[in-house]
């Protein structure tokens, strides 16, 4: 029985280009208060375009209806639980949207005089300090635009430190359970990648690690808790192994939601990590961004942080560009400031004790789901889990139903799917992260849906394999999309 949802009508809507009609407009500019100029004479006629062929021509009311109709085709956190593992899809507080749009903040130009930007700089300084305290690190750069960008920054910092010590080294060690961004980042930063096995307990294989840490290893990129949702209990020992050989420990902080107020990477041997403000710190994911990927480091890496750095000059904040060892800048200006405002608003709302409660509830929710579902789904790694739990489709696969099918059927029950087929070390993974912002009622509905689907697999696997049935769009032909790419609209 599907209790959470029932079908309703959703409007069809053509593309903007198909809606366009010559002469329609949705804008009106103020009357020009200076003489008009002839574009051809000031730009040169060869530089002036005659037209923007194909560009939309629609009215204001059609514009708002167009985008409103499209919006109705999306699932969103505001609709319900979004149990994507490793993504921390939590409620996005709306006051954060309001404060990010206050004129003095939203209209601040990055080159306006420092004395007229003190409020923005104070926001950044306060966020840096809060993130340093939460992670137990010594310094933070807010410059990176997203998690992967933070990874790149972190590895470049490590490279710079090792270069200063005489040798940047060659390899980055990456556990087989890691996010795909980790190996991609290592290569962009000029390193080769060497995988590290996980044990049957779902943790890094310390013995195997000891065997492969040699003088060519620059760093280990570890996620903790890892992508199985399992805390790396040997982390202190792991860090010692790396440090003993002059290598560093980089942590992917995507799963920081499991640790706030409980344990700090800086206290368990991590030298650098990034945070995803769009995960742990509630800034909206927006259909794929913007995010922000601040990097927190220990003292030894601080001299290499990107320029500019905030510096206290008397009672004012100033930007310091004169830093001899800095890696340079990883993007223009100072970072995704609008995201910083939202993240700081979130930290202020919870406060220190509140952030710990966030983690307690996030871990409770994941454990509750595990407890209720472990009778129905295979649990390949029985170690205690933190903020997420990873099942496999082993039992359902015997009926020919795979994790992707289960996920699609979940849509019919009114939920966004969990993360499918990741981490790669679990064949047919179902990676479930509820976050702290789900009520018991929502969790119970999710659990009921999962149990109902497990039952359907036994009785009627075809229904699950062909899911979703209730959406306006059924399964998309992704193979043809990739074989014959149509990446833009063209008039018939």
């Amino acid at each position, binding site marked *: 029985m599907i209790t959470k949802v029932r079908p309703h009508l959703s409007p069809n809507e053509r593309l903007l280009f198909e809606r366009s009609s010559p002469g329609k407009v949705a804008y009106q500019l103020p009357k020009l208060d200076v003489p008009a100029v002839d574009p051809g004479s000031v730009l040169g006629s060869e530089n002036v375009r005659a037209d923007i062929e194909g560009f939309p021509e629609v009215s204001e009311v059609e514009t708002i209806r167009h985008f409103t109709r499209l919006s109705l085709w999306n699932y969103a956190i505001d609709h319900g639980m979004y149990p994507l593992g490793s993504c921390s899809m939590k409620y996005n507080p709306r006051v954060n949207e309001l404060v990010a749009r206050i004129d003095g903040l939203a209209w601040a130009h990055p080159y306006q005089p420092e004395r007229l930007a003190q409020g923005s700089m*104070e926001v950044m300084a306060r966020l840096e300090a809060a993130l340093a305290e939460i992670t137990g690190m010594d310094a933070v750069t807010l410059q990176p635009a997203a998690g992967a960008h933070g990874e790149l920054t972190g590895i470049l910092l490590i490279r710079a430190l090792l270069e200063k010590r005489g040798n940047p080294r060659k390899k980055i060690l990456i556990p087989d359970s890691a996010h795909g961004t980790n190996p991609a980042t290592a290569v962009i930063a000029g390193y080769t990648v060497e995988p590290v096995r996980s044990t049957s307990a779902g943790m890094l294989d310390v013995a195997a690690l000891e065997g492969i840490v040699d003088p060519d290893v620059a760093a280990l990129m570890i996620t903790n808790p890892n992508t199985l949702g399992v805390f790396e209990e040997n982390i202190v020992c792991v860090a010692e192994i790396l440090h003993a050989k002059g290598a560093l420990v980089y942590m992917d902080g995507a799963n920081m939601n499991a640790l706030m107020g409980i344990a700090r990477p800086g206290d368990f041997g991590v030298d650098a990590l990034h945070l995803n403000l769009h995960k742990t710190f509630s800034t909206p994911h927006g*259909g794929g961004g913007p995010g922000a990927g601040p990097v927190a480091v220990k003292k030894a890496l601080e001299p290499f942080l990107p320029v500019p750095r905030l510096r206290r000059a008397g009672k004012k904040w100033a930007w310091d560009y004169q830093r001899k060892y800095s890696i340079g800048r990883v993007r*223009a200006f100072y970072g995704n400031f609008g995201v910083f405002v939202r993240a700081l608003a979130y930290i202020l709302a919870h406060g220190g004790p*509140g952030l710990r409660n*966030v983690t307690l509830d996030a871990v409770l929710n994941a454990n509750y789901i595990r407890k209720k579902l472990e009778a129905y789904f295979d649990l390949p790694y029985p170690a205690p889990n933190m903020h997420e739990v990873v099942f496999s489709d082993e039992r359902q696969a015997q009926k020919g139903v795979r994790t992707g099918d289960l996920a*699609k059927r979940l849509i019919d029950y009114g939920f966004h799917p969990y993360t499918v087929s990741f981490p790669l070390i679990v064949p047919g993974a179902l990676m479930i992260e509820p976050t702290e912002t789900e009520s018991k009622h929502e969790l119970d509905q999710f659990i009921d849906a999962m149990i109902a689907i497990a039952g359907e697999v036994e009785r009627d696997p075809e229904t699950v394999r062909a899911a979703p049935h209730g959406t306006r769009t059924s399964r998309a032909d992704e193979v043809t999309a990739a074989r014959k790419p149509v990446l833009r609209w063209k008039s018939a």
Partner: protein
Amino acid sequence: MRYLPKSDFERREMLEACGVASSEDLFSHLPEAVRLKRPLDLPPGVSEYEIIQYFRDRAAENANGYTSFLGAGVYSHFRPVLVDTVVARGEFLTSYTPYQAEISQGTLTAIFEFQTMICQLTGMDVANASMYEGSTAMAEAALMAVRVTRKGRVLVARSVHPEYREVLGVYAKPQRIPVEEFGYLADAGALDAEDLESKMDDQTAAVIVQSPNFFGIVERVKEAAEIAHRYGALVILVFTEAVSLGILEPSADADIVAGELQSFAISPCYGGPYAGIIATRDKYVRQMPGRLVGQTTDTRGNRAFCLTLATREQHIRREKATSNICTNQALIALMATVFMTVYGRRGLRELAGQNLAKAHYLASRLKPRFCGKFFNEFVTSTGDKAAEAINKALLRKKIIGGLPLGRFYPELADSVLLCATEMSERADMDAVAEAFQ
């Protein structure tokens, strides 16, 4: 706490189901050595009212009620009301990356429209779903050109945004890609083709130029392209002022376009979040970084959109991916999409025309340093006065003047970069002009 939806009673029920007495027990497996044994040193949580007050106070410490003539990569354009109306919808704001096509058609369709409009504006065949911002888009475009040409050297014009060039250097260094710069003409403020020619060799993967360039000058892309292509290098055309695309003919000579869309209804917001793009020719699409949305059909035969060509991306290809980019700037790209829709075919042209008129009015009252053709920014010498003194005088009139250029170009220490947009009012421009007298 208002963001935690459970009562203590419900928590107890759940703990009981888990077979533990307290939430802390769920952490009992953590080794003693890793545990934080004190509370986080952060103040207790505050109410919504206090949060709003805190940020209003911070905003009050910034410039308020000033008119600004700053450009230099970030422009003050009017933001149509519909933009925030659309992006404030929870269905867009609070959704994830559209991997699950069946329940993400809203985002996917909007991105497909975005990709199409970027192609229409730039004259390219294909555009991605966004990059972080302009400078990283340019750096990634350079890496892309290195993959396409299998050559290892990049030349960049000094008339490209200085911070973009810094980022390029940071991206290129660990991959041992030499980056060299070529100069600009002291009179025209446009790239120096002779200097470019003298630095070209057959190992050059890309020549990077920006138009309008950092000085606001419409760049000599054709000349640069003729030289670059003769040596088998790709031309990367960068833009930071997207409104110029409404009036400037897109270059037929570019192989990759990398740009910044901040001008399309994205608040200056002290430097971000903005949205970058990369657009290119069809033949290079498989070396392109970033997400792409493609059109297909669903099992019922209806048109549908999905993320595609993911075999370029990190979650499939890991260390063999074209880039490590994952999260991009989808919601910001949606802002730009709504902006492009509101202004449309006629409006973007008219908007660009107003920018052109305003900047040329301001320039008519000052003396542009360069003779090159410009869009809405230009460099002017401060003459006998120091740039700082002029700006200080303007601040007293609540006007933020142009950007002093000495910091980026020592040879232009006596010059400022001024920008006028449709938001610049004649009286303020007159005040700026007077400050230079």
